[in-house]
């Protein structure tokens, strides 16, 4: 052990290594955070390109650009990449950058593990994306990969898909172990749990969720592997198995996964709202309790994704009630954000604009979620574009806007340069307009009866689909602007002060460091009162 400590110390004096090896071998939380964020950004454009293919095909009825076989590969990979390759890595990247800085630590607790958890990701996605170029084609059974479509009826490449999911899962579990260890052991003296910044709280809970459910996902895909190659029949009715079992296990993972993709955004947005309202977050402890109860409830609502699968009445009602319960802590969070703005002193920098959009549009996604929880009504909504509208509202102007808000908020701290505020605002307004143009009409297409995952559709859905496609193209191209703004801020820009925004020293330890912060964040632990 002692040798490890020595080399580490040694390395500290030299700062980052030069060239490619800096990134390959790095154990530094900021470098790894940066890697995660760039990886996620790259995946955003790949997954986004797939969305563009989907929307181009759906612009008009008829098959014009791609065939259904490829279309299904696009919807599947778009979903997988956005969930596992964009939203999750972006949050882990933010965690890597910010958690040590927010709790007054020099680095993450397990730096080498940290390196491993990142580098597993490019491997996983390299495998996944390579299947698209194989003769049998990539996964085409939806990101929820229901058996037996994903087992008996899957293309041969499904084995690569399974392997890639295993690798992603390993990466997430290792990352979570690291985050939990860091938070529990490396907080500055005086920072009790109930004094932790909300972003740290949200990640602590998220990491526990990940550790709880990632093994379930691994179990699911392993059972698939057994069915496909080793003659078992877990999910094959002909062999005495149960295709519905697949869905139960999948959603037992899948529902907590949904909250994994939103909780850290709650943390980020809370910080931004307090900063730009110049007022401490309202109801800190109720925010923590709400986070915790959302996490606990997330384990008992999974079957609301399966209301039409044929459950007993008591089951349907149980999952309806438990799902409705989640609206309470979620509502409490929204009320607290609004109460924080109330009687504040509010300014509208880009991070705040994204945070406000987050609160309003995520709430709309919450409302449609509540509607979907109503079982009898769900018989009509289920598997239509109404569901697509719902989860895109919580994931795009929800999670993604939360991430973007966080990037604008902390970017000056990371680079030492302010980003271009005018371009930032332009980026916001274009994104805000186009995100609604894309996803709002989907509610109507869905209510009118268009099922999801359709490469072609009946004529009455044509008008709205055209609008949706136009919105999607605008939204897609707008994100190139974000790329430009980030690169610009890395290279030039007005020097950012240590506090970056006004009086932020009160809001968190990260603002007491230089901008950009030293390579090893806190070499002397700060004291929290």
């Amino acid at each position: 052990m002692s040798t490890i400590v020595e080399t580490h110390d040694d390395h500290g004096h030299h700062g980052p290594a030069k060239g490619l090896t800096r990134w390959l071998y790095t154990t530094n939380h900021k470098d790894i955070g940066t890697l995660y964020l760039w990886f996620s950004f790259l995946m955003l454009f790949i997954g986004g390109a797939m969305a563009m293919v989907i929307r181009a095909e759906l612009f008009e009825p008829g098959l014009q650009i791609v065939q259904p076989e490829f279309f299904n590969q696009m919807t599947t990979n778009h979903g997988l990449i956005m969930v596992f390759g964009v939203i999750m890595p972006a949050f882990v990247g933010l965690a890597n950058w910010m958690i040590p800085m927010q709790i007054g630590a020099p680095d993450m607790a397990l730096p080498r593990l940290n390196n491993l958890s990142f580098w597993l990701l490019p491997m996983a996605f390299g495998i996944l994306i390579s299947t698209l170029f194989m003769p049998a084609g990539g996964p085409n059974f939806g990101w929820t990969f229901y058996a037996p479509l994903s087992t008996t009826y899957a293309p041969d490449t499904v084995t690569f898909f399974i392997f890639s999911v295993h690798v992603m899962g390993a990466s997430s579990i290792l990352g979570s172990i690291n985050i939990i260890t860091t938070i529990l052991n490396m907080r500055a003296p005086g920072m009790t749990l109930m004094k932790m910044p909300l972003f740290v709280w949200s990640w602590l809970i998220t990491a526990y969720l990940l550790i709880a459910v990632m093994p379930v996902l691994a179990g699911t895909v392993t059972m698939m592997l057994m069915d496909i190659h080793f003659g078992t029949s877990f999910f094959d009715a002909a062999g005495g198995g149960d295709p519905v079992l697949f869905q139960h296990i999948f959603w037992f993972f899948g529902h907590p996964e949904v909250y994994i993709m939103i909780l850290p955004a709650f943390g980020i947005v809370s910080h931004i709202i307090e900063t730009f309202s110049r007022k401490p977050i309202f109801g800190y402890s109720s925010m923590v309790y709400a986070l915790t109860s959302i996490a606990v409830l997330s384990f008992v609502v999974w079957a609301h994704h399966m209301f039409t699968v044929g459950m007993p009445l008591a089951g349907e009602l149980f999952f309806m009630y438990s799902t409705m319960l989640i609206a309470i802590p979620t509502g409490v969070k929204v009320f607290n954000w609004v109460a924080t703005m109330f009687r504040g002193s509010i300014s509208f920098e880009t991070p705040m604009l994204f945070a406000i959009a987050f609160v309003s549009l995520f709430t709309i996604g919450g409302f449609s979620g509540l509607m979907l929880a109503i079982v009898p009504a769900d018989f009509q909504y289920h598997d239509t574009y109404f569901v697509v509208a719902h989860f895109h509202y919580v994931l795009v102007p929800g999670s993604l806007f939360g991430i973007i808000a966080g990037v604008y908020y902390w970017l000056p701290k990371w680079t030492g340069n302010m980003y271009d505020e005018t371009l930032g605002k332009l980026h916001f307004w274009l994104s805000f307009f186009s995100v609604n143009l894309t996803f709002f009409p989907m509610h109507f297409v869905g209510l009118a009866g268009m099922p999801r995952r359709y490469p072609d559709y009946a004529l009455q859905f044509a008008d709205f689909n055209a609008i949706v496609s136009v919105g999607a193209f605008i939204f897609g191209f707008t994100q190139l602007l974000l790329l430009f703004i980030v690169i610009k801020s890395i290279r030039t820009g007005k020097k950012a002060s240590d506090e970056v925004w006004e009086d932020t020293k009160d809001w968190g330890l990260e603002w007491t460091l230089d901008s950009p912060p030293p390579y090893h964040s806190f070499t002397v632990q700060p004291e929290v009162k």
Partner: protein
Amino acid sequence: MKSISRVTRKFIYALLFLAPTSVFSEASDYNMPVGVTEVSKEIFDLHMLIMWICVWIGVVVFGIMFYSLFKYRKSTGAKASKIDDHFWLEITWTVAATLILVGMAIPSTTVMIKAYDDREGDINIMVTGYQWKWQYKYLEDDISFFSNLSTSQEQIDNDIPKGEFYLSEVDEPLVIPINKRIRFLITGNDVIHSWWVPDFAVKQDAVPGFINTAWTNVPKPGIYRGACTELCGIKHAFMPVVVRAVEQEEYDAWVVEKIALAEAERLLNEKVWTKAELVERGEGVYLKNCVACHQTNGQGLPPVFPALVGSEIVMRDKTRNIEILMEGVRGAAMQSFANQLSEVDMASVITYTRQSWSNGKNGDGEIIIPQEIVDYKNKVDL
């Protein structure tokens, strides 16, 4: 493309639809269909109720938020207060949220109990999802048939203009009488499908190995169109549901006719078939059942769907050829067609594939007569 003005008009209507003062809250083609059954109407009302509650909560919450954003702008010199908690306020809104939810849960439960009712029906119909078509089997009357998409491939490929019921028309709809309790027993043959008729508010997954139930009672004659709503492979979007609800007398006549047709079909097994007759009939069967995978030209879509042209089995191995069609290939998309095709259709489609393209010239050129299929079935039964 539709004229732009129509598009914008619809869009404005759509925005109004979520506005608190709606000009309409009734049926429209951008809202959930009201439907025709008692259950579908109650579900529609429930949907509107929940939606309006959400809208009003939204109005209040967003109202306060935008008021705060406007009123407490820093640019107008607003000073931030330092209040960061209020115990009773937290309790109040938690309780308020809970009460609203209870208010939603009560009507939802009532409607749910009504919709969920698995007693026997006056008529019981087995609905089976296949890749990519529906089979309807009337349990009381021994009627059974498949319902395939009837929109032509040319329309899908944009070679000819699209018809009014593009992708929501079938060769043979499900026929039911009005004012009768119809119970559906829903299952899947290969992967999971989901059978949905919006106007009845019936959506049930068709899961292999399970039989789910759903029911309806349609008061009004008409044609009701629905879809498959669970991703089931390449042609997921191309297996619509069409139900024709008719008066009782018309239904009875239809049943008699169907039974007579089935009987005539059985008699065909005894007829002496010529090669030309078999090929001709087989072409129709092939176009309806096989082109999705093996393509019209018999070239398939390798590597997933093999070509039948030049296949050793199709050209020379009659026994195996029959076996594949009757049993399917386990673990592959090639399913058993034993239940889907009559003996005559089975014999003729195999003959067709053995005689068409270059297979007739290069293979053994043998034909298959219905009796061989009957024999195969008898042999397997033993």
